[in-house]
Structure formats: C-alpha cells, structure tokens
C-alpha cells in the first residue's frame, strides 16, 4: 500500500517557507547595506576584467546567433504541431494570464511533491535571478552606469546567495537522481536530463570560481571591505590566496575558468530551444493555452468532438490529434507526477500516463518531420516508419487500462490533458472492434435495452415496488424535480436499497419528484468514455427527446457519471437543463430545514470523493456540508478532493475484464481508510462506489473494521425514517436482501 502522503497544509507550509526565504534574500541584503555600507560609495568592478576586447565582441555575436538557434528549435516543433487539427485555446486572455502567473511563474502545481518542489524553486529562482543579474550587468556596462557603491554591493550579495541556492537545488536534484532514485523518474534517464543537470552544476561552479579568482586578484588586497559582500567568491578567493597564487597565475586561472564558464552557459541557453529546458517556454505556453473549464467539460475540447469522418474515426495518425495535443507531448518533462495517483499505474496495469505522452512524443520526433516534408509536397500518404497510433504505437491493452478518473491531469504541473488522448484512441479501437467481449456484450445490451445490465427496459422502475408510496411518472404528470436514476441505481440489487433510501428521504422532505420509468435510458457517460461515440449520441438523443416530453424544473441524479453527462455533454445535443446531484439537493434540504435530523450521529467516518462529482465537476464541499449537518466526525483521507483515488469502475471498467495484476484500486483505497484508524464508515455518493467498495471490504478482510455506506443512508438514519433493520455492518447490500424476504 502507498503510504498516505503528508497532509496538504504542512506541505504548503514548507513551500511558503521556501518562498519566504527566497524573498528575504534581497531584503536582508538591502538591510545589511543600509546598516553598514554607507561609506562604500566608490565600490564597483570592472566588467569583463582580464578578458580581451575581441572576446566581448565574440560573446555578443554568439548571443545573436543563439537567438536564431533557439528560434529555429521552436520553429521545428511548431511545424510538427501544425500537423494537428485546429483547436481554439486563445479566448479569455485575462484568465489565461492569471493561470500563467499562478501556475507558470508561481509554479502552483509543484507542491504536490515536496522535495521536488523545494529543489525546483531553488533552481528556478536561482536561475532567474542570475539571468536578471547578467542582464543588469550588460545594461550597466553598455548603456547606463549604475552598479556602483552600495547598489553594487547589494547586487553582489543577492546574486551570490541566489547562485548558492541554485547550487543547493542542483545538488538536491543530483541526490534525487542518483541516490534516492524514485521509480517515477525511470523514464527521465535520458542523456538529455542528466547532461542538463551536470551542465548546470558546471556553470554554477565555474561561475563562482571566476568570481573568486577575480576577487583574489583585484579586491582581496585593495578593497577588502567590498570582498565580503560576495561571500561565496570571498571564500574561494581566500582559498586561492592562502595557497599562495600570485597575480599572474590568478589572471591565467581566471581566463581558463572564464573560457569554460561562458561556452557552458551559452550551450545551456541554446538548449532552451531543444531539450528539457524548453519547458520554460513550452510549459508556459501550455499553461497559457490550458483548458479553462473543469475536467467534466473536456468533451467540449476539439480533440473529442463528435465523429464526422466515419471512415476514419479516432486517433490513428498524428494528424488526427489537435495542435494542442501535439504541443502537449513536447511539454512533458518526465517528472512522473501524473503517475502518483494513477490507479492503473498502481495496480500494475500496462498504462502509465507519462509513458503514453512520452511514446507519442518520441514517435512525433521521429516521424513528424517526414510528415511535414510530405505535406509540403501536398502529400497525405503514409511516410516511412509511420504506425497506427491506437493499437500499434500505443498497444490496445494500455489504452483500455485507463479509468478516466483524471488524477493524472489534476497533478500535471503543465496541465497536460492525458484524457483527451484516451477517448480518441479508444474510438479507433472500438471502430476496429478491438475490445473486450464483455464490453462489446455490454454495448450491445445498451444499444438494445438502454441499460448496461442487459435487462429489459420494462423492469427499470421495478425498484419502486419496494416502497410504500407511489413514485410519480414524470411522463404523465409534472413534477418539480425529475430524478434521473441511472442504470446501476435502477437495476443493480446491491444499489437498489440505496435508491429506495433516496426516494424515502425525498418523500420525507415533501419533495415534488418523479422518474421517467422505462423512458429513461443510460445517460451514456461511460459509453462515451469507452469511445463508442455513436451509441452515446443515440442514448443522448433518446433521453433528450423523452426529457423534452416531461414537465419539470430541475433534474436530480444519483449517479455522478450521469450528472456529468447531463450537465456537460447534453447541451451540445440540445439538452439544456438545470441539474444537481442528490448530495447537493440533500445539503439544501438539510440547510433550509425541510429535512430535520432527529439526532446527531456520533459516527467517525471518512468520505470518498467520486471522480466524476469531484475532480470532474468540482463538487467537493456539498457532500461534506451534508455530513456536517448530520453531526458525524469526518476524518479526511490523505488522498481527498482533487487527489481522490478512483474506485476502479470508471471509464467503462465496470464492463470489462479486470486488467490489473496488482492490488485493486478499491482495495488500496479501503486500506487507506482503515489506516486512518477507528473509522466506522466509508461514506460514498455514487452507486458504483457502493458495490465496488463493498466488494473491496470483503476481499481485504476488513469487514470488522469498516463498512461502506451511501451518504443518503446516513441522512436517513439521522432522520429516523423507518428503516429496515440494519445488520451489524450496516451495509445496504445486506439490508437489501433483508428487504426482499
């Protein structure tokens, strides 16, 4: 089992502290100068001391060439991205600028990995300050002479300290890479990544040496008062003078170091256009063009538009991806963050989100230029080395492994949209018929009967037979709330008792609600996720038609997956509704007094955020408000809210053979909850979760420790509506069988 990560707040504290340290440096430098440095008015140094005049021109010329070299690097990638389909990502500049500031400059997604975060902040700000310092020096030397006296000394001190911080950061990176070796870095063993790090070390060390030797030769004797303001340089200078180096020797050594330092720095800068360092630019660009809507609205992205080319659906060639997707594969720096919470990765499936992105990146680097060349000649034919992306480059089992839970996207520092690839790839596989027989049986059943359990649609409303009050048929009479019940909640015996509990609670609250009985069909959310776009459309059209014939004000759903489809995906087909999840309705009913708990519940519980309610649609607080109103003690799991860990049923996995070879995601999750200590109930708000986690409690053997309960089950308990006698575990599945007696 993965160890529960440290709580979010303590992580934030460390990151804030890091930032505070960074910000303190120039302030302390300024303060020090004010305190002691008033009599150092003529302090300063000769820029490019000991370096021939022609070298200065060579340096400037090199800089000009560098700009071209870098620009060419980006142009080459840009040409590759242009192979992709169009997609608009430049609306709402204000939002995008904000994202750039928070997540680009501010690196707002880094704190997920603490060590890496501190390491990266040191390197990043070290580099930024050193770069600014160099720019300032150029201005001072060539345009406006201002780095003198106390200003100069403050400047020196600040740069020295940031250089040192960068050195610490690089050191941390080397330790991580060569000693700690976290497995998620396995792909980052490319020479690019390693060379970059050693190059940075070389630049920093040689820079300090150049400085130190210069100070030894020019300051230590003449202006010892100044030398101390470059603390690192001063120490090095001391070492050289103690060793007895004379001025002539120092000048030679200085030149040698200088001629090492400058080319190394130039090489690093050139690399900004090509290698891993390009993430400075590409990452910013990707953050700027990120999807602004929540994950749930992802289908709105161009990558997932309805299929129009029936001969060639889904993703087979690079040209089937959008420019944005192609850009994204170039952004990835192989940090492995996407794998951290990926259920497919943890359960030992073939999929890793990072591997997916990297495979396409490598493929594009190899074959893309040939495609560009062919396109210049107006050719659309296959080029040498071209492979079918779905099924060949990315093997089918890898594509099917994904649970579409979105944990990868929520972690990526650069907002790579892994899911946008998944659905496109699956569309291709479905079109070719490369799918699990269990899945194809389910899809056949869905197209025939409108539900994923392959049962007669006439039985859809049969769960209501266990109620002692009638449930309105909204097709016959108007109701304020149209309850879209969903497949699992309607048919699965393990979920039906929860469904009846929802009905009883609604009834108790005096809610005016009804259901569509056999008029309701699966909303098709997961049908779309498995890539069966045509079937999704069929289901959506049928539902929209039936909904159009009913009179209601708001739709309430049990299933978060249904909620997502109705809310985010039906509008494109002409279905615009006011829609809420039952937890939202319960929160309202409790808060406006329509539901009055008869007692406080003293349970100690934890709450599992369903992927499609939380990450996809941002509903995190509402269910917690319900729990608060009931009085239970809520203990949060380490992976909660955006980091919630998938139950393993998403993305159509309920309909497929299990693919993982390791621990099931649901079992991993139950262990996490049990590890919290003394938690009686694992509270869920999704019918799929009920059956997934009940099963996991059994298979992990934690039946004594913890029981799975739907949130409405707790609400009902607090209301003391008459409930069928609960057995020791209080599991709804058990009470379901008791009901049928």
């Amino acid at each position, binding site marked *: 089992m993965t160890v529960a990560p440290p709580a979010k707040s303590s992580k934030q504290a460390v990151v804030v502290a890091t930032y505070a340290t960074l910000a303190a440096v120039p302030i302390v430098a300024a303060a020090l100068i004010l305190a002691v440095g008033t009599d150092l008015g003529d302090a300063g140094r000769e820029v490019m001391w000991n370096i021939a005049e022609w070298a200065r021109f060579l340096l400037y010329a090199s800089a000009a060439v560098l700009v071209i070299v870098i620009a060419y690097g980006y142009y080459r990638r840009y040409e590759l991205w242009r192979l992709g389909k169009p997609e608009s990502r430049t609306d709402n500049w204000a939002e995008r600028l904000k994202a750039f500031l928070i997540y680009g400059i501010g690196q707002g997604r880094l704190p997920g990995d603490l060590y890496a975060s501190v390491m990266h902040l040191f390197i990043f700000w070290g580099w930024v300050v050193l770069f600014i310092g160099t720019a300032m020096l150029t201005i001072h030397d060539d345009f406006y002479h201002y780095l003198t006296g106390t200003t100069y000394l403050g400047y020196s001190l600040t740069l020295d300290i940031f250089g040192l911080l960068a050195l610490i950061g690089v050191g941390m990176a080397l330790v991580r890479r060569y000693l700690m070796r976290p497995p998620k870095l396995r792909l980052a063993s490319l020479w690019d990544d390693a060379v970059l790090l050693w190059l940075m070390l070389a630049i920093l060390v040689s820079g300090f040496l150049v400085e130190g030797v210069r100070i030894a030769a020019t300051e230590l004797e003449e202006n010892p008062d100044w030398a101390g303001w470059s603390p690192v340089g001063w120490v090095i200078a001391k070492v050289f003078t103690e060793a007895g180096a004379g001025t002539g020797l120092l000048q030679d050594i200085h030149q040698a170091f200088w001629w090492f330092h400058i080319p190394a720095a130039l090489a690093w800068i050139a690399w900004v256009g090509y290698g891993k360092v390009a993430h400075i630019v590409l990452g910013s660009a990707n953050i700027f063009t990120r999807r602004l809507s929540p994950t749930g609205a992802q289908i709105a992205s161009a990558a997932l538009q309805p299929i129009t080319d029936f001969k060639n659906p889904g993703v087979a060639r690079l040209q089937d991806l959008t420019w944005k997707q192609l850009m994204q594969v170039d952004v990835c720096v192989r940090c492995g963050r996407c794998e951290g919470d990926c259920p497919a990765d943890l359960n030992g499936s073939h999929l890793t989100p990072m591997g997916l992105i990297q495979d396409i990146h490598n493929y594009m680097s190899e074959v893309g230029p040939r495609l560009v060349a062919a396109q210049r000649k107006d050719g659309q034919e296959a080029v040498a080395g071209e492979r079918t992306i779905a099924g060949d480059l990315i093997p089918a089992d890898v594509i099917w492994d994904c649970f579409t839970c979105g944990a990868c996207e929520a972690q990526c520092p650069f907002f790579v949209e892994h899911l946008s690839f998944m659905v496109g790839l699956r569309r291709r596989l479905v079109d070719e018929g490369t799918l699990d027989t269990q899945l194809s049986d389910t899809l056949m059943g869905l197209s025939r009967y409108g539900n994923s359990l392959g049962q007669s649609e006439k039985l859809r409303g049969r769960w209501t037979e266990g109620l002692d009050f009638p449930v309105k048929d909204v097709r016959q009479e108007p109701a304020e709330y149209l309850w879209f019940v969903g497949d699992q909640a309607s048919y699965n015996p393990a979920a039906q008792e929860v469904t009846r509990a929802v009905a009883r609670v609604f009834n108790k609250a005096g809610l005016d609600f009804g259901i569509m009985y056999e008029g309701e069909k699966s909303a098709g959310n997961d049908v779309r996720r498995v890539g069966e776009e045509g079937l999704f459309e069929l289901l959506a059209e049928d539902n929209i038609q039936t909904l159009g014939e009913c009179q209601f004000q708001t739709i309430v759903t049990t299933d978060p997956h249904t909620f997502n489809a109705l809310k985010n995906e039906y509008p494109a087909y002409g279905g615009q509704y006011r829609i809420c999840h039952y937890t939202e309705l319960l929160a309202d009913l409790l808060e406006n007094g329509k539901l009055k708990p008869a007692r406080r519940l003293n349970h100690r519980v934890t709450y599992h955020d369903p992927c499609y309610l939380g990450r996809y649609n941002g509903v995190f607080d509402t269910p917690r408000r319900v729990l608060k109103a009931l009085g239970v003690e809520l203990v949060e799991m380490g992976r909660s809210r955006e980091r919630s860990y998938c139950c393993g049923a998403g993305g159509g996995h309920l309909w497929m053979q299990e693919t993982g070879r390791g621990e099931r995601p649901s079992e991993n999750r139950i262990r996490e909850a049990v590890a919290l200590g003394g938690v009686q109930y694992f509270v869920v708000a999704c019918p799929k979760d009920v059956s997934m986690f009940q099963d996991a409690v059994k298979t992990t053997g934690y039946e004594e420790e913890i029981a799975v309960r739907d949130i409405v089950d707790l609400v009902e308990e607090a209301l003391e509506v008459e409930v069928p006698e609960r057995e020791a575990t209080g599991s709804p*599945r058990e009470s379901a069988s008791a009901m049928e007696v």
Partner: protein
Amino acid sequence: MSQDVFVLVEHLKGQLTDGTFELLGIGREVAPQAGGRLVALLLGRDVRGLAEQLGAADVVLYVEDERLGDSVPEAYRRVLAGLLQEQSPKLTLLPTSSLGMDLAGALSVELNLPMIAFCKQLAVQDGSIVATCELYGGRAVVEAEIPEGPGLALVLPGACPADKGRSEGAPAVEEVKPSVDLAEVRVRFKGLIEPPPGDVDITRQEILVSVGRGVQREENLPIVQELADALGAALSSSRPVVDQQWLPPTRQVGKSGMTVKPRLYLAVGISGAPEHVEGMRDSDLIVAINSDARAPIFNVAHYGAVADLFEVVPKLAEAVKNRGA
C-alpha cells in the same frame, strides 16, 4: 404406410448411448398407441452384436457397411432414406444429437415427411402424432401435431428415463442391404480430434459445483472455487464460461461438452438451457442458485434458491467449512 414406430439407434465407440434407450422408452409407449411394432434401426460398420441390448424393440433392422463406421451423417441419411421409403413407418424417432440433428431435416425434405423438433413428449392420438416441445430456450411449451402422419420427431435428451428403454427381450433381428450406393457420399471423414488430456475428469467426480454466465467475470471465479474447495468438489461450467476461456473445454457440461452424473450437481448462475440440462439432468441431486425465478434450471433442480449468487455462495462456503470444523 405402416403403423410402426422406428427408432434410430445411436452408438459411440461401440457403446449404445443413453439417448438410444430414451428413444426406445418413448417408442415402447407410442407404438401401441399407433397400433404398430417398435422397430430399432441399427446402422454401422460392425454392429450386429449390439442388437442384443435392444430388447425393448420388437424388431431390429441392421445395416452393416464399412462407410457407416465413422458416423458421417450423410452416409446414414442415404441409407435411412432408402429404408424409410421402403418401410414407410408411421413415426420415426431421432435423437437431438450431433448425428440426429444432421439427419432429421434432410429426411423430412427428401421423403416429404413433416417433422417436429425439440420434442419432450410424444403420443399418437386418433391417428395424429402429437408432441410437446420445449421451445424458446425452455421459456415456452408448444403442443404440436402432425395430423394423421407419417412423420419424424427429433427428441430432446431426457424426454424419458433411459431405464424404460432397457428391457430384456428377444426381438427379431434382420439384416437389410442398403439399396443406395454409398460411394456417392460427398462428405468424407478425416479423423477425430480428442480434447486435450490432463485436466480433471469431471465425469468421475462425486460432487460438481458448476458455474454459468451469472458469475459475470473471470475474477469472480474464486468465489465459486472456494465453495468447491470447501465441498471437496471439482468446478465445471456451462458453455459460455468455456467460450470466454475462463475454464478449459474439459470442464464444459452439456450437449457439446460432457455428460455428468455426480451425487451432487450445484448449478450456480446457470440458466438451464436444454443443451446444458442434457448433460447434467441425471445427477442424483441437483441444487440451483439463480437470481431469476423464471430460469428453466429450476425445472430440473431438486432444490432451488432464487438469490444472488454473490450473496449465497460465500455464505454457503462458510457454512460448509464451519460444519467441517
């Protein structure tokens, strides 16, 4: 047309099949109703010896020919067509088996004889052939008749206890020479492919826990396996479970699988299609667990529970273990 009832004798590897005795059992009842004799038709390479076991029949007609040895249905069909043409019985009974299914329709067309398939019961009433048939996967019972006759019937396995067709007797045994040229048979036998050996032989198990499509996924098999282990039983299955390759073909019970007669057959999530039932209906004790009260398995089971297997099977395994302890 004579009033005789003819029965096709089926044999495998020198043994008469149970189906043969079932047909004879039915024939024994129907022949008097028709007012004719019960005639057994015995075809094969070297089959004269088998006639002794056909005591239930009044007459045994046998045909021996080298080309009838490999149970190529077309060869049988040609011989039978000639024979039935000459003898024109009132009713001919064929088993619903890999042989009978490849004969009945062809004879019906060739001899212009009406036929009824999926027969569970047969009678001759006022000269008409009346059959009760199990259609639609056992979901409907159809009573059909061939007014006056003559006709053919394809009889489902299990329509009659085999013992009713096993009786002592001394039928007249006559050899008949085929009136057709078997050189014209177009279908050629090339060989038999035996199932891979090495797995458990489910036909020799005392207790079988048998699992069907109701288990839904391969990963759920351990739930049932646990029960089998507790009972000291072997796991067998219906066809879909084998088709999905969740279990090897050697575990399949039914028409194209094995016929089993254990002391206990515990059917879990099996609907009880006729093709499955024919392979297990003679078990001493049949207990079925199925969530659908309409499932035809409850028609053959001695005890049944309309319940979710995922609920009951683990509880049952536990209960069995507790008892052992």
